């Protein structure tokens, strides 16, 4: 369970997220892909926080620095906010285009 394990897992998650984003024909699936990407990032941060960042000493007990973890928390929050807005926009698209297939939303081009 070394750092590299986590990194490999997060890399795979990231690639899968990218794959979803590139290939899925449903806006919501794309959103899922994005969530995978964000999760992989968070996993990275937490892993680095655990293994890389130097320890700090606070009132006698030694803890690791939590910077990475806190970034991950913010990441989750941002992901949530983004998901909310994303879904709202998907609804608007659905309303206007009657479809949420990304390739059917292509009136703007050229």
């Amino acid at each position: 369970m070394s750092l590299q394990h986590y990194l490999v897992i997060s890399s795979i998650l990231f690639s899968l997220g990218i794959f979803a984003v590139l290939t899925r024909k449903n806006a919501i699936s794309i959103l899922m892909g994005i969530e995978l990407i964000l999760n992989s990032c968070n996993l990275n941060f937490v892993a680095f926080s655990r293994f890389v960042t130097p320890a700090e000493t606070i009132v006698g007990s030694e803890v690791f620095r939590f910077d990475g973890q806190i970034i991950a928390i913010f990441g989750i929050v941002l992901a949530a906010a983004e998901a909310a807005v994303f879904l709202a926009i998907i609804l608007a698209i659905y309303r206007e285009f009657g479809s949420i297939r990304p390739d059917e939303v292509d009136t703007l081009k050229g």
Partner: protein
Amino acid sequence: MVVPLISIILLAPLAAFTLFAVLGLAKRNFPRQDYLSTFAMLVALGCSLLLIQEVTSDPTPLTVEWLSLGSVNFSMGFYLDSVTVIMLIVVTLVSSLVHIFSIGYMHGDPRYPRFFAFLSLFSFSMLFLVVSDNLLGIYIGWELVGLCSYLLIGFWFEKDTAANACKKAFLTTRVGDVGMFIGMMMLFAKFGTLSLHDGTESGIFTLVEGLSGTGDMVWLSVAGILIFCGAVGKSAQVPLHTWLPDAMEGPTPVSALIHAATMVAAGVYLVARMFPILTPTSSLVIAYVGGITALVAATIAIVRFDIKRVLAYSTISQLGYMMLAIGAGSYVAGLFHLTTHAFFKALLFLGSGSVIHAFHAMHAHHDDAEHPEDTAHEHDDNSLVHEHGAEIPPDQDMRNMGGLRHKMPLTFITMLIATLSISGVPFVFSGFWSKDKILGGVLGRAMEWSSVHHYILFGMALLAAGITAFYMFRLIFMTFFGEPRNQEMHDMAHESPWVMVVPLIVLAALSFPVVNTIWFNKDNFKPPKQPHIHAPQHAYVSPDSKIGDANFGFSLFGVSTAQAAEEDAGPDTAHADDAHHIHHLAHNIAMVLSICVAGLGILLSWLFYHRRRFSAEGVATTFRPVYNLFWNKYYFDEFYDGVLVALTVWKSRLFAKFDLSFIDGIVNGVGKVTRDVLSAFIGFFDNRVVDGFVNRVAEVTWAAGGRIRKIQTGAIQTYLFVVLGGIVLIILIFRLF
């Protein structure tokens, strides 16, 4: 006195023209432009005569900085020697007479004032050319007379023939002028100046001495020949002579003044002026060109029926004669012939004008129906240089004339005098003396050096002299003798008014040597040096001294061939005595021969055209090829056309290839080749290739824009492909570096 006199000579005609131009801008006419111009000319004439007394003074009385460029300067100034004075007098005199003649001849023309204004402008330009002391000034005058020639040939510009002829004249002479300009550039590059003789001894004439015997002779020969090119154009020498016959489209006084007496003689004057820089090679080239011209033009003249064209070819021939003389070293003889020729040829033209005028009275105006066949003849307006073989207008066709001596006695007599003069009838006529001087000079050279070239040249000159006599008398016989061939026209004919006849009489008087002698006796009329040409056995040009003091080679009836020989031989060389002897002999032989050929020519002419002992037509049939050659003017124009045809075929192919839409069927003139093939090709090149390249770049740019647009499909996932693919690419590309 000199400078004011010359200034007046120049300014008087210029003022006459300027007044016309200024008033013209205000859309007015000076009511008596004719008198004004004539008066101006007479003033100039008077001043010119006064100048005779001044020849001995400083040769460059006035030099002003014209262009000062710091290190290089061009000056303008007057150059006054006896040649200048003679030319001045010839020009002003002939011009005055032509002015007077025109008052009658051009009467009633709608553009009557303009005619005189142009004449004034011409006179100014010609005089400017004559008095200039540097090549640039000569060139300026040279081109200006060309312009006037253009304007005056095209005076009746409504006629397409005239419009074409004037253009042809200008362009053809310009070809020669460019050669002259290149020659000037060479001289300038070498000497850094264009002044001939600027008083401070840094003119070309002085500098050229320094070249003597150096390796620059070839270069100098080329420069000399190039300068001569200008003369070839202006003096209508072969092969650029074709414009002069066409120039007869202009009013006849113009032909007399410009295309007989003065402008065309300017070429001879130029060569004479530039005599000091001529090398043996260039001299020989000049002589040959002159000789060929003399012969070619003379033979063509035999078969012409248009009275003016006969005279035109005669002019060409005589100009060739002069060139031959100068080229062969008979500098004085050439100039002398120039002078005598100016008078008798002007007389001939004016006389023919008088005849035409007489016939012309049938027609109210020059411009309507002067050429009834105009409408029938399809003139190609699109040709740059037009038409050499225009139909002969009926009032100029000698076949319509005959027996006019009774109708127009004064005209007849004066023209006869001129004809006798040009034919070289001995002793009483000036033409004889000048022609004899040329023949003697050339023969003298030939004998002195045993030069085959000069024997050939002498032969040419002699032959030309005989032919001249023949066709001139042919003209006289056809026009004034025999029975009227066109009775209707004959009945209309009448003697011209006095304003036209008086100039004829004056000119006739001038055809006697007594008058000429007056100014040729000037002491210091001497040929210039050619000091650089000191090839030992070819020292044929005399430096100063003795000849300088000699008079021009003849005195009234006191035939002084000895004197002439003296001039030619030159005193400086070791073999001066031999030379004298040879030249003496040569002049005697030449005189005899020339009298013989002239007599033979006149006799034949009499037999053919007066006595009708022989039939000209019969001879023509017998010698059909020769006749055709003459009739078609040695196919010069056809040659230019022929080159053209080949090029036109090529042109058509070219056009077919490039799918151009316009093809002109008719082939006409050298200029057309240039226009249709070269310029069309270049125009095409400009549009398709140069512009096309730019357009191609623009198209590619646009297409690239279109491509990029296509990537912008509107589908978001495409964009994401680009983003993520882009990341991969950036990393990979950077990795490769």
